[in-house]
């Protein structure tokens, strides 16, 4: 299983860009990198997924270097409502079952 390491917590202010980096040194060739967001008392919500280079959607960007041993989630111009826990996951796909293992996540606090 490819494990991930990400900061336990981060602080930011409204309007700033936030970058959360995740390391996954043992990522396998077939693994995708996925980020989830979780608010208190809710299930995690899918944010973005990528395999290599850069992926962008309406919520965030995901930067993945060529060696794929790390990835960076970028949240542009955060607001108070972006305060949440963010999980970086690397897909474990035995037989294509796409079983994901969650780490501790990064607790992002956005301040006024």
């Amino acid at each position, binding site marked *: 299983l490819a494990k991930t390491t990400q900061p336990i917590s981060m602080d930011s202010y409204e309007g700033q860009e936030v970058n959360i980096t995740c390391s996954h040194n043992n990522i396998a060739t*077939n*693994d*995708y990198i*996925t980020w*989830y967001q979780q608010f208190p*008392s*809710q*299930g*995690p*919500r*899918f944010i973005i*997924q990528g*395999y290599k280079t850069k992926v962008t959607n309406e919520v965030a960007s995901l930067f993945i270097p060529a060696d794929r041993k790390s990835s960076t989630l970028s949240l542009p111009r955060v607001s108070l409502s972006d305060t949440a826990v963010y*999980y970086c996951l690397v*897909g474990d*796909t035995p*037989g*294509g*079952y*796409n*079983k*994901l*293992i*969650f*780490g*501790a*996540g990064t607790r992002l606090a956005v301040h006024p």
Partner: protein
Amino acid sequence: DVKVTQSSRYLVKRTGEKVFLECVQDMDHENMFWYRQDPGLGLRLIYFSYDVKMKEKGDIPEGYSVSREKKERFSLILESASTNQTSMYLCASSQQGAGYGYTFGSGTRLTVV
């Protein structure tokens, strides 16, 4: 909008009771998962299923069983509830194959007294 629905948002049960947590998805996903989430421990995988009547143990299956009789429904069963099973339980589903994200339900907060 696609959904994963968990039957109860909050549940209180007594020690020794048999508890059923139900999860239904409307996306025709092959894979379904049960996690529990506890403060300081994150999300831990209990069981998962990749097809009807198929199941695989996750990281913490002890004290739990599952049932998947229909593709859209995945049930978690606590055979004899104990206080250490007080937790937030999260169900998720995903499409078969690499590169697909999970869709989670809103969770069931179970308290065993």
